[in-house]
């Protein structure tokens, strides 16, 4: 993983994290929005400008790749690099959670 990817994505935004998490299965942008809404009981509603920008940026950086198009919706899925970044983030968040539990 090169320095640029690390600098931009570690730590990453909540939006970025949810995108990578949801793209373990191929999905399109709005599909991700719906999944996240469900997972967070409506607390997090990802916005279209953010989604479009993040998806195209992540595609350019090779974290996700374009699979196919369905009814004008681009379907993406996570790449090897994307999984690596996601794993790093998960470890970071796990540690955060552990530490929070201990200190409480």
């Amino acid at each position, binding site marked *: 993983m090169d320095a640029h990817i690390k600098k931009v994505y570690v730590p990453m935004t909540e939006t970025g994290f949810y995108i990578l998490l949801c793209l373990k299965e191929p999905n399109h942008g709005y599909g991700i929005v719906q999944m996240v809404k469900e997972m967070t009981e409506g607390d997090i509603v990802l916005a279209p400008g*953010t989604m479009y920008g993040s998806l195209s940026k992540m595609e350019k950086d090779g974290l996700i790749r374009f699979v196919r198009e369905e009814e004008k919706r681009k379907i993406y899925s996570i790449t090897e690099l994307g999984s690596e970044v996601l794993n790093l983030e998960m470890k970071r968040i796990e540690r955060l959670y552990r530490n929070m539990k201990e200190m409480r």
Partner: protein
Amino acid sequence: MMGNGKTVFKFFTIPQYRQEEDYLSAMNEKGWRFTGVTFPGFYHFEKSEPEQAAYRLDYNREGIRDKDEYVQMFTDCGWEYICDFVGYSYFRKQGAVGEEREEIFCDDASRLDMMKRVFRGKIIPLIILFVSVIIPQMFMNTVGNSVGIKGWGIVRDILSFTFLGLAILYLVIFSVTAVQFYKYEKLVSGDSSGIRLKYVSVFALIGVMIAGIGLFFWLSYRSSYEVTENAAGYVVKIEKLNTSIVKEYDLKKGDAVRFHIAEFERGHLYLSVTEIGKEPVFYSDSCNFGYYTYEIQNDGRFRIEISGKKATGIVEVTIE
């Protein structure tokens, strides 16, 4: 709804997209639904029920290229696509605008990304134009002279001041943009000394440029010379001449006024002899090195004038 439209001319600078959004929402609330915008800034509206609506602008060239997928993303999320204008895409969401702004961006990182896209797409081309065309043209037309080509002097002056005007306009645009970006960035990521330092440097740079341009024009259009009288007439040593040096003499028929351009570096020099209250009896345009002599034909009082434009040199005037 036929004929129930109106068009308003409104000017927003490049980074004022938030003001533009608020303006469109306010119009919607007054019963004017935004339908599109055409160059250079005509906003078209149609009469409708006064109701609340949120308007948002995105700047995403990639989105405009892959328009179908881009618009679909917004449509899915409940935003109506209205139009594109100079790289911006306009969206609307009908209904109550609650306490919380309806947003097309849900985090600060993506708000800053949009600013960066605007900067890359709109401001950088202006900076390139400013550095590679405006400044060199202003410089060349101000310093340059065109000895021998009649009428070029005035063209040069017009060009030099036109490019000065453009340079000032660009610097104003850059300043307004910097102020606007500072406000957004402060809003998005909070005030910090890093951000302040960045914008202070930008303003310092703009200030230095304004001072530099001012100094450059002052040096080009000032007059600095030294007149030394001697027994036979006078000598004018010119560092820079953009005005007239006039001396009056009582002369008799048979006297001769002799100009000697002993040194001449650049610019234009004009020499003339005029009897007071009459047309010039001698006039020389765009002089170069050498002697110019005029023999007085009648007694009277004469004005001897040396005028210049961005001229540098030495002129000796002898009355014989």
